[in-house]
């Protein structure tokens, strides 16, 4: 069981509002690992759109990505790429 935790500055131009949040969750759900996001002490399930949306993550926001599970490393790479890319 792997555990990965890292702070990331979100560079996605639209932050994580409705559509990007849905895309993030879609990627997260490809993996078996538990995915959590933390912003300002608020920790939410990274596999739920409403939860991700509720963080109100805008471009430039620093969040912590936390993963736990057998495919945590692989999931981390993909999710970090999504958050860091300026995919308008």
């Amino acid at each position, binding site marked *: 069981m792997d555990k990965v935790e890292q702070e990331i500055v979100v560079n996605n131009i639209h932050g994580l509002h*409705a*559509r990007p949040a849905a895309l993030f969750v879609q990627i997260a759900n490809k993996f078996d690992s538990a995915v959590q996001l933390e912003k300002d002490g608020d920790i939410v399930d990274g596999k*739920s*759109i*409403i939860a991700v*949306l*509720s963080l*109100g993550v*805008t471009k430039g926001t620093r969040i912590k990505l936390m993963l736990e599970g057998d495919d945590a490393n692989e999931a981390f790479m993909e999710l970090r790429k999504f958050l860091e890319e300026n995919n308008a």
Partner: protein
Amino acid sequence: MISGLLKYMNEEDIIINLKARNKKNAISVMLNCLVNTKRIGKNDKRLILKVIMQREDMGSTAIGGNIALPHARLDCVKDIVSCIAISREGIDFDSLDEEPVHIIVLLLSNQKEAGLHLKTLAYLAKMLRDKSFVRKLEAAKEKSEVISLIARQSNV
């Protein structure tokens, strides 16, 4: 912070027992409500409906858990306008979890209000991520009950 939401929610812009055949019809009924309460112009309704449906075509805003948050930013909308509808039967909204939608919160913002628009969506999500709150909303029988539930949830 969430209490700021109440500024944009009016008792008269709540539909307690929404009857609608489908997603487009539901949104149309909600826009009619906003026309009647003069939050949006009658002549703007068609354009607003078109923009909302274009957004829905990109990906449904029915994000699971029986909730939908259709939204759009337009020049013809003043500040931020919202309408809440509750459907007892549930509406097919092409939701991501394929479940019918019981709570629809429609959010319209002025084109210039990108930041506030996203912030308001986030506040709505924060409120609605609480499943027991959603169940209480679904069961509300009066418009005033919806407002007081939201006010209470805002203080959590």
